[in-house]
């Protein structure tokens, strides 16, 4: 049996355990509900006035209304039109004047359909609307942050569990430590990725059902395209750090304190990216610092001010750092795994050569 086989067995067990874990299942369902709610519900709730009663005095408005897509119901008099609105049989009415009748809120689309708007010419048009401009960077950063934080913490917990329950010694005697580490990281990367993929699919499906303009998919495609490789490499880099932190703790209670530096390493780049997203110079710097590159570079790919070679260079820097931290994380992991009496200091773990690897 090779190290690879052993790592696969470890990964298979981790995935099996996770898929039976209620917290994991609930969080996935919760995210899916949010995805559905944020795409399907607005369209469903904001149906707009579907039926508009038009009295003979306003007959001239009927064509304009039909063109805007609402159902026009022609009635005999202004009074009858008003009655239909009051009874809820029509969402709005247009009567002599022309005046628009509605119950509580001014029906924006009816008003728009009847208004003449001046022509607008943009001197520097931006093809993305401001909502997307704000939400896409935020969403990408948020996905990377929550995923690397929650799944990372679970890697730590799973490592600490093996230490706290003492099963670790049997494992270490059976398979290489590297296989244990690789299996855990691979399993969590896969699960994190699968969770995001499912949520993304549901979101897009929801956008179709909800009739949200699917043109956004083409708009955010470059950002997503870069988000994937940065996500994978960045996630693996952090996952090893989380595993190392988990190995330093002897009990779940120690984990919070021991993993604090890793938590900071995930949290600070996220906050910086959110705060500095409007500042091109800062974002350029952030997109090359390995800890913030997975957050900042896809955002820059979306906002567009990016030379073609930049993501490649940044990804190379990230991959090199990931490899370095992988070695460091593995070292800490090996050095502290069998020190089951209390917390192990980072330095002890590095110096320890207790394990054969």
């Amino acid at each position, binding site marked *: 049996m090779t190290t690879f086989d052993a790592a696969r067995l470890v990964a298979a067990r981790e995935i099996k355990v996770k898929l039976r874990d209620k917290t994991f299942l609930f969080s996935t369902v919760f995210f899916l509900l949010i995805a559905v709610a944020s795409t399907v519900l607005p369209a469903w709730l904001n149906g707009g006035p579907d039926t508009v009663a038009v009295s003979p005095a306003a007959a001239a408005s009927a064509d304009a209304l039909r063109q805007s897509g609402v159902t026009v119901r022609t009635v005999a008099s202004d009074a009858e039109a008003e009655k239909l609105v009051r009874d809820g049989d029509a969402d709005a009415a247009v009567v002599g004047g022309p005046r628009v009748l509605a119950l509580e809120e001014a029906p924006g689309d009816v008003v728009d359909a009847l208004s003449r708007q001046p022509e607008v010419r943009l001197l520097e048009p931006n093809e993305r609307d401001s909502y997307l401009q704000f939400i896409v960077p935020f969403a990408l950063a948020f996905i990377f942050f929550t995923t690397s934080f929650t799944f990372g913490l679970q890697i730590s917990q799973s490592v600490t569990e093996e230490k706290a329950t003492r*099963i670790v010694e049997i494992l270490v005697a059976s398979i290489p430590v590297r296989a244990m580490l690789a299996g855990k990281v691979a399993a969590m990367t896969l699960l994190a990725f699968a969770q995001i993929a499912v949520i993304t699919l549901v979101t897009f499906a929801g956008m179709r059902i909800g009739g949200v303009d699917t043109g956004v998919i083409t708009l955010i495609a470059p950002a997503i395209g870069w988000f994937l490789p940065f996500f994978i490499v960045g996630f693996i880099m952090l996952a090893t750090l989380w595993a190392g932190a988990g190995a330093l703790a002897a009990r779940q209670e120690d984990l919070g304190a021991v993993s604090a530096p890793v938590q900071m390493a995930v949290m600070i780049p996220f906050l910086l990216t959110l705060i500095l997203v409007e500042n091109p110079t800062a974002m350029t710097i952030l997109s090359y610092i390995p800890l913030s590159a997975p957050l900042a570079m896809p955002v820059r790919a979306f906002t567009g001010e990016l030379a073609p070679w930049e993501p490649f260079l940044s990804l190379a820097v990230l991959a090199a750092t990931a490899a370095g931290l992988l070695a460091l994380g593995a070292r800490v992991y090996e050095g502290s795994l069998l020190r089951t009496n209390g917390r192990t200091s980072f330095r002890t773990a590095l110096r320890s050569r*207790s394990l054969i690897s």
Partner: protein
Amino acid sequence: MTDVLTVDAVSRNFGDRQVLKDVTFGVTAGRLTGFVGANGAGKTTTMRIILGVLAADQGVVSWRGAPLDRPTRRRFGYMPEERGLYPKMTVTDQIVYLGRLHGLGRDDARRRTAALLERLQLTERAGDHVEKLSLGNQQRVQIAAALIHDPEVLVLDEPFSGLDPIAVETVVGVLRERAARGVPVLFSSHQLELVERLCDDLVIIADGTIRAAGGRAELRASYALPRYAIEVAADAGWLRDQPGVTLVSLDGPRAVLDLDAGHDDQEVLRSALARGPVRSFGPVQPSLAEIFREVVSA
């Protein structure tokens, strides 16, 4: 009778403290070898080095003449002193998983797990989470974890601690079975009576050095004192005045005595017979506890 597993001149430090000094001994195929020592004497460290969980500073551990490597060690069965299993995994899943980590195929692992749980009387609990099991049953699962891949060598650190008497008998039975199939078994224990009853060979360690090693009978013989027990019909008080005799204990007609060098046991027997009937007379074998005390204090 040759040693298949040999520990050769192994030393190990933790910081400034030397916990193993030049440890050398062998384990013979098909025999149960008891590894005895006080807490902190170096038993666990030695076993961890055999399994490759710890590295030795100096010295080698060999299997059939070749230094141990990982593929060979994977065929070893190990029960660490610090017990542990996944609390939220079922007994079967757990053993199957550990079997697969030792290189068994899925079906093979399942079949062997079922058979082993049957042998250890755990079949009823096969689907339970380990955390729901009693301590004794958890220990049996731990034994199963060490045996699942039919190991070529068994290294068990305190396999009997925490076991109830019935479980001890089950485990003793299983270990004897394995030894009878030619598997060398090394186990540590501080329950000296149990070791005395169970083991064929003994290794005694104190302060990180091997103080004695060999067959149980030979060790007994070499540490045998010139000590005798006698039971006569009347009071045995006269032994106090017998030349060359030091009384160890005296209880009416029964006495235990040590003979000084140059004196013959038959002399004592003749004096006793001259005084009346002798019910029993014979040498006293030292118990393991006594040998242990003597070896360690030396």
